[in-house]
């Protein structure tokens, strides 16, 4: 178990060793976002701009326009909400090489409550032209995502969580920007892309990101035990979306269930619907927060209270099959 934010801190230190050009910024939350690990290792390339998120993004843009690879971190709610215009204008419009890596996203922030639980950040970032949006599900995928973001020249948003999460992806799995990952044993991406069949191969396909990937796997196993044929896939790259894999999944499945720790408006579920409806229409149920703000509570309680458990995914799948 490791929180994705911890994996981020470690990945930054590795990057800093390899690449002198990497500069990291934070806005007084370095102990929480884990950029403090980089600060300790490379104090000259770390800048804490204080509680000033707009300035954080502007300074990040200026550094990037001068050739630096910049990582700018704070909580997701402040990064994408408070500094939205700076991300839009100073970073994205300029195609600046800034990686906005935001921690404490979603309900699992927990007791801090609804004010601090970003549930619309994916929607905000996804709607900005040219922005890459990544939501890794575990520590290893986070490290891959950070590495891939650093290697890519342009703005990237990476969404991380506060709570420790188990390692979900099989060993040896490599994340790539723009590629989904098929998680069901015995099924490969290549199989799905190449197979031609008149009958659907799967009753339900679960497409998830972040903390919900684990729930998707559990739901898939539970339904398999009931005799249904299920597929689970991790779509950490929400933008660009792996439409090739998505359409293959849609072609081979009776229904799709999406799962994310985000509003059902504008996130992964929306991205999936927007894409499949135009090429391979198939019933889609979106599991997520149902257009409400969160509240205080412990992370597991909140996931239960807002319908984000494996059980909720099972129910959604059964409903989807009735559509």
């Amino acid at each position, binding site marked *: 178990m490791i929180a994705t934010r911890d994996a981020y801190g470690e990945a930054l230190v590795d990057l800093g060793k390899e690449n002198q050009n990497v*500069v990291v910024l934070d806005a007084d939350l370095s102990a929480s976002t884990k950029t403090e690990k980089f600060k300790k290792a490379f104090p*000259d*390339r770390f*800048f804490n*701009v*204080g509680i*000033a998120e*707009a*300035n954080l*993004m*502007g*300074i*990040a*843009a*200026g*550094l*990037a*326009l*001068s*050739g*630096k690879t910049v990582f700018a971190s704070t909580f997701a709610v402040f990064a994408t909400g408070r500094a939205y*215009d*700076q991300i*839009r*204008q*100073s970073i994205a*419009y*300029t*195609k600046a090489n800034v990686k906005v890596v935001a921690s404490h996203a979603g309900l699992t922030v927990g007791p801090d409550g609804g004010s601090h639980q970003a549930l619309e950040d994916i929607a905000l970032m996804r709607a900005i032209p040219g922005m890459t949006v990544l939501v890794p599900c575990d520590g290893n995928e986070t490290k891959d995502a950070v590495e891939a973001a650093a290697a890519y020249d342009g703005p990237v948003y990476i969404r991380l969580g506060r709570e420790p999460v188990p390692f979900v992806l099989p060993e040896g799995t490599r994340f790539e920007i723009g590629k989904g990952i098929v998680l069901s044993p015995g099924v490969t991406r290549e199989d799905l892309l190449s197979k031609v069949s008149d009958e659907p191969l799967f009753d339900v396909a679960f497409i998830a990101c972040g903390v919900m990937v684990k729930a998707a796997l559990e739901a898939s196993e539970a339904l398999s035990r009931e005799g249904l044929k299920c597929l689970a896939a991790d779509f950490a790259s929400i933008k660009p979306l792996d439409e090739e894999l998505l359409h293959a999944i849609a072609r081979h499945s009776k229904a799709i269930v999406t799962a994310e720790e985000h509003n059902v408006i504008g996130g992964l579920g929306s991205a999936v619907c927007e894409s499949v409806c135009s090429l391979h229409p198939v019933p889609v149920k979106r599991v997520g927060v149902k257009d409400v703000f969160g509240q205080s509570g412990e992370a597991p309680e909140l996931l239960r209270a807002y319908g984000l458990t494996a059980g909720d995914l099972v129910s959604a799948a059964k409903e989807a099959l009735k559509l």
Partner: protein
Amino acid sequence: MPLTSCGNQAREEDLSRTAGQVKDMAKVVRRHVIEMIGEAGSGHPGGSLSVTDILSVLYFGGVLRVDPKNPSWPERDRLVLSKGHSAPALYAVLAEKGFFDKGILPTLRKLGSPLQGHPDCRKTPGVDASTGSLGQGLSIAVGMALATRLDGRDSRVWAILGDGECEEGQVWEAAMAASHYKLGNLVAVVDHNGLQIDGPVAEVMSPEPISAKFQSFGFEVHVVDGHDVEGLLRLFTSLPRNGERPICVVADTIKGKGVGFMEGAVGWHGKAPKGEELVRALTELGKVNEQ
């Protein structure tokens, strides 16, 4: 008159000659500004004309270290036009400086033009930052100044702000950071023309006293007449290239400077002169002796 040595006298003659050249260029720039905005049918003449002398001194007075043939030269000085709506003045200066062909100036604000309504550094050679949403340029300049220091370059970063723009809170976040990081390679110039879209800055929402505010934020502050070319030249060339703290120049200007009916008139913030107005403006700006 104080006694001056021969060296000083030579410098004064030099300065006077340079000032003459800058003034000629400023005339050319003002004419371009009016022609471009007239042709576009929209744009912001008031703030473009108030900042023209400042930009002309920077680019034609030998203050900025730039190479028009190599706009992305790493050793160059950077200029962030934070008050991005004054883009026509910047475009005219960059074109006259040789960053791009003057022939494209009339395409301002037209579909497919590299000259966007507000500066776009991905489209226009010589533009160092994309701006337009007010209040963001000084932060970008702070980032550039930090990068300059990290790379051990002696380049300087200039940010040009409006006085109305100083109502944006982000300006002060950036000012705080510039001072905190002791960015002696950063100069903020405030085009202090006293007017914003809805009226006099003092009536809409006064950010005054601007110079005292920058001073209290840790800047070395200079107040200057923003249309006194000799004064601007003297000041800009005397500023330390990398001092102990950031510098702020509050340049008192007249919105619409150079076109009588636009001077000090709120209505010309963001309106294009048409027909008779355009003729009057260009007549007033007069014929220009193109070199």
